[in-house]
């Protein structure tokens, strides 16, 4: 029994080593793929500052792919800077995320300029500045009143968009939302249930474009491409950073929002003032550093790797940081 047992343990150990090697090899492959960053050039490497040791930060996010990835990017970046980072990446809507931030359950999470202005600070969508920096300036005072601080926004924005199959768009001769005039009454629009009553969604299309649709079909936002593919709706509310727009660029058409009703949002990392002060200057500089290489295309690609290739947000974020030279 003894010999047999030892032989078996040895075999098991060998098998484990072979497996481990296999996984390590796979890991190497992934590194080369990278996150599509433009490389950075000079050393962008984030260095761990011993002073940050022992400072604990909890990073949150809302509950969809892009937010998971962003949450991971910020969290891993801050970790590289030496902070002890905890993650709470599935908070639900912005109302819940804001509440968690105000109550100190989390220290920071990524929000969008337009969402912050319209949902938190009662801006009408048509009043949201199209310039990201101006929109960011508008939020700072209001955030300060809540004891929060927002970091400068990313260069790209994501927004709700009215999308449809490219062939339908060609057939009906549609390029912008205004082109829907006179045709919308025969078309079905799909969107989340809340879209009906939101001014940055159906309500805005009705009030500011004067469009009435043949039918509005409320759906789970996870089905927003499915309803187009299955011909269950003619139009669907999509997001500009959607993975599908990256993988199938010729399949779908986004109608231009020529009246600016669907406000664009640049990503805004919002933190509690208290946590930001305690974390010191490395906090802000790390946050600004890790988002430097994020562009619309990179975001779409990262989203597609999670939504379509089913990679983990954690790994996709790490690849992005590595490819950009922020971490090793």
């Amino acid at each position, binding site marked *: 029994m003894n010999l047999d047992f030892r032989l078996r343990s040895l075999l098991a150990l060998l098998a484990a080593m072979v497996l481990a090697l296999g996984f390590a090899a796979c890991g190497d492959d992934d590194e080369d793929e990278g996150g599509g960053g433009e490389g950075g050039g000079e050393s962008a490497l984030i260095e761990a500052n011993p002073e940050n040791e022992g400072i604990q930060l909890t990073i949150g996010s809302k509950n969809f792919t892009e937010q998971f990835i962003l949450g991971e990017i910020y969290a891993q970046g801050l970790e590289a800077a030496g902070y002890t980072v905890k993650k709470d990446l599935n908070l639900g*809507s*912005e*109302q819940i995320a804001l509440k968690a931030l105000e109550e100190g359950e989390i220290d920071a999470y990524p929000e969008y300029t337009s969402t912050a202005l*319209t*949902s938190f600070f*009662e801006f009408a969508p048509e009043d949201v500045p199209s310039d990201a920096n101006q929109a960011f300036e508008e939020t700072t005072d209001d955030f300060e009143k809540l004891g929060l601080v927002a970091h400068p926004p990313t260069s790209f924005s994501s927004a709700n968009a009215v999308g449809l199959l490219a062939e339908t768009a060609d057939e009906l001769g549609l390029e912008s939302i205004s082109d829907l005039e006179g045709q919308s009454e025969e078309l079905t629009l*799909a969107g*989340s*249930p*809340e879209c*009906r*009553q*939101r*001014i940055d969604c159906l*309500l805005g299309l009705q009030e500011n474009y004067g469009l009435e649709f043949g039918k509005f*079909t*409320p*759906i*789970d936002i*996870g*089905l927003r491409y*499915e*309803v187009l593919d*299955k011909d*269950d*709706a003619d139009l669907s509310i999509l997001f500009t950073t959607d993975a599908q727009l990256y993988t199938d660029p010729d399949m779908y058409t986004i109608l231009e929002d020529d009246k600016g009703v669907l406000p664009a949002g640049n990503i805004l990392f919002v933190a509690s003032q208290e946590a930001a002060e305690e974390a010191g200057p490395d906090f802000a500089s790390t946050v600004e550093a890790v988002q430097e290489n994020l562009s619309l295309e990179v975001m779409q690609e990262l989203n597609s790797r999670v939504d379509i290739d089913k990679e983990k947000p954690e790994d996709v974020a790490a690849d992005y940081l590595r490819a950009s030279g922020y971490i090793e």
Partner: protein
Amino acid sequence: MLLPAGFLDSFSGAVDFIFNERPSVEGSTQVGGLGQIWDLTQVHLELSLAAMAAGLLIALPLGIYLGHRGRGEFFAVAAGNAGRAIPELVLIAFLIAFVGTGFLNLTIALAVLAIPPILTNTFVGIRQADRTAVEAARGIGMSERQVALRVELPLAAPTIMTGVRTAAINVIATATIAPLAGTLTLGDFILSRNVYGDEGVLAGAILVALLALATELGLAALQRAMTPKGLKLQRAMS
């Protein structure tokens, strides 16, 4: 669990939401109030009734047949358990591929949820009908069909109704997710927090709970009414 602070405030806010219209969270439209609630309740009930009707239409005859013949116990039980294991949202997404979004899709999805408890309980109820009564019925010359429908079915009624109650509660509670597949029910209040706010969400939850409770009470009364006198006597004596 302790009640969170402000629970009573939220509760009275939810009650206010049910009776009075108010601006949405963004302030862009009016929401809540009895008018909207009545509309959504109607659709909620229509959908639940359609699903229950479809479920009964399939599960009841099948359960009676299998139970009477004493066959397919494995099938009745396995179908019952498997049906319970399918996540409803997956089923809806799956059905969208075949029948599209909307009322029909949801009716099928919810009927799949209604069938298992009715099927299992019908099968068991019929199987367990008093054997001496069944033999006596055969003895006086009833056909198999008559035995099943006139003797076994009435004796199984209380058990079947228990299954129907379970199914109805499941269906009403699950019809809450219908707004994710094209039909607006009371679940809209729960799913669209950004429009209705926390008080609207709570109001939706209260309304669905009330609807389920009312259904349960109504069906329990029906169950008592449907229990044969003989069975009631038997129970009172034992």
